[in-house]
């Protein structure tokens, strides 16, 4: 079956599993349409992220994964619909309050001015400190602990601009770990990591999501990592369609082929499904 034929069989609505938000729900979107300039409305999202869940967002370049994450973090307004964080409308929270509950790891990392690794991780404490406060020993310890969990504890004094791309990506994760939010948003957290750190970072993210009243939502490019580490998936199609639900119901080869406009071969390794691009 070619990807084009799959279109008719796999309509987004048929796949989606809607879950109504409950009192426990951490992050919920209602009729959310993200705003991508000069693009027609995408289909409205009714996502319900509950405690303990680890969501993966899959989609081709330009499908709006980053835009969605930025919208969820109130860094850009949606075109329509609303977002609720622990039952409160996102817009009703103050910025520091929002930053204590929700953190975002960006895809690109700005250099800005020179700073050391420890200083960079320490800014994660900013939302917890009042204007006159100076970082305490506990704040520094939290930053050190976060650096240790991403294997950066040996280079606390290094200048950030001397780090490799992968080290910098792990530093961004350490910063958000220092921030310690309930809802963790990550924009392609593994794109520059070696194999070992891909696995260790995603294990760490899943471990955090499993914590008390925590959840994670991450955009990923690697279907196999998403299949392995995420319990829920959101597929964002290039035509603006979307479907979401538990991972096992989302990993339909025909849907993934349409998602990436790429024929896939499916296999099984260690009891897990594995998807590889089929090259003629």
């Amino acid at each position: 079956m070619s990807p084009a034929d799959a279109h008719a069989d796999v309509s987004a609505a048929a796949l989606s599993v809607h879950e109504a938000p409950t009192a426990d729900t951490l992050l919920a979107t209602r009729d959310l349409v993200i705003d991508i300039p000069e693009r027609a409305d995408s289909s409205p999202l009714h996502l319900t992220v509950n405690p303990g869940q680890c969501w993966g967002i899959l989609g081709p370049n330009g499908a709006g994964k980053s835009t969605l994450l930025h919208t969820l973090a109130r860094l850009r307004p949606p075109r329509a619909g609303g977002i609720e964080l622990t039952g409160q409308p996102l817009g009703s929270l103050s910025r520091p309050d929002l930053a204590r509950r929700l953190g975002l790891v960006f895809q690109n990392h700005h250099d800005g001015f020179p700073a050391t690794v420890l200083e960079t991780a320490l800014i994660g404490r900013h939302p917890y400190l009042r204007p006159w406060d100076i970082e305490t020993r506990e704040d520094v310890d939290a930053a050190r602990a976060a650096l240790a969990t991403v294997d950066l504890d040996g280079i606390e004094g290094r200048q950030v601009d001397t780090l490799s791309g992968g080290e910098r990506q792990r530093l961004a994760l350490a910063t958000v770990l220092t921030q310690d939010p309930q809802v963790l948003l990550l924009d392609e957290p593994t794109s520059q990591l070696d194999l070992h750190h891909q696995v260790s970072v995603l294990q760490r993210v899943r471990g955090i999501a499993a914590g008390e009243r925590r959840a994670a939502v991450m955009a990923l490019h690697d279907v196999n990592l998403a299949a392995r580490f995420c319990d829920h998936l959101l597929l964002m199609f290039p035509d603006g369609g979307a479907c979401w639900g538990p991972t096992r119901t989302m990993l339909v080869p025909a849907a993934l082929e349409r998602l990436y406009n790429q024929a896939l071969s499916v296999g099984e390794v260690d009891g897990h499904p594995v998807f590889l691009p089929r090259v003629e």
Partner: protein
Amino acid sequence: MTRSFLLAAGVLLPASLLSLVVALAWGSVAIPLGELPRVLTGEASALHATLITELRLPRALAAFAAGGLLGVAGALMQVLLRNPLADPYVLGLSGGASVGALLAMLAGLSMFSVSAAAFAGAMLSTLIVFGLAHGTGSWTATRLLLTGVVVAAGWGALISFLLAVSPTEELPGMLYWLMGDVSHARHPGPAWGVLVFVVLAALPLGRTLNVLARGPMQAASLGVSVRPVEWSIYIAASLITATAVTQVGAVGFVGLIVPHMLRLVFGNDQRVILPASALAGGILLTLADTLARTIIAPEQLPVGVITAMLGVPVFLFLLYRSR
């Protein structure tokens, strides 16, 4: 952070006092250091007392305040634009101030009116850049920087035009003003008021500025209300620069170089860099002005020449030694 703060305070506070003492003691008439305390007790000779209380002290205090203001304004602008080359002069502020001052001089107005015109010119330039950078689209640091640079180029052309059409006898005064001139500063009170207020207001904002230096998106995700903070910095830096320019004319270079020197030594925590820039900028301009009025005494040099001659080698040395 606490360590660099104490280190900066330990080095810069005594150095500030020392620079003021040097400014009082040096000059066309050298006053022995032992004479300085006697001015306070009224035992000094009438000549020395007059020299110090009427001439050197107001001038030294004015130079210190203006230098401090320029240092702080530069540090703020560099964070705002996330560009190490930014300073208030790049954004057209000094250009607007210069055009205002030159027009007032051409009209034959008093020194006070020249200062007022300089302040008006700086604020006009601020409003032009402020309005145009906002435009119809989104506001970005790059757009602000470009708007400022182009507006500054426009002011530059106007300055050349005014110099070309001015009567020859006016030119030396105009050129002095354009290169910085502390000799007319007699009332340092308002500048000190602004300097103290700005440093006290900037201290609690320092950590927010640290976060903002990582980029607006990152700052917003860490709880900073980016837009209000950015506009506040821009307006504050403009007012600070306008105040400094009103005192001492268009002294360049202090705002660019002082914050960078301090970053090379003390790291880049704005809670350290902002107050340190106030002190170090003050020290630089006070010493530069002392040299400007002593090197070829009784003639005086424009202080901007001295700040550059002192600052360039020191800065290059620090940059060369840094990692």
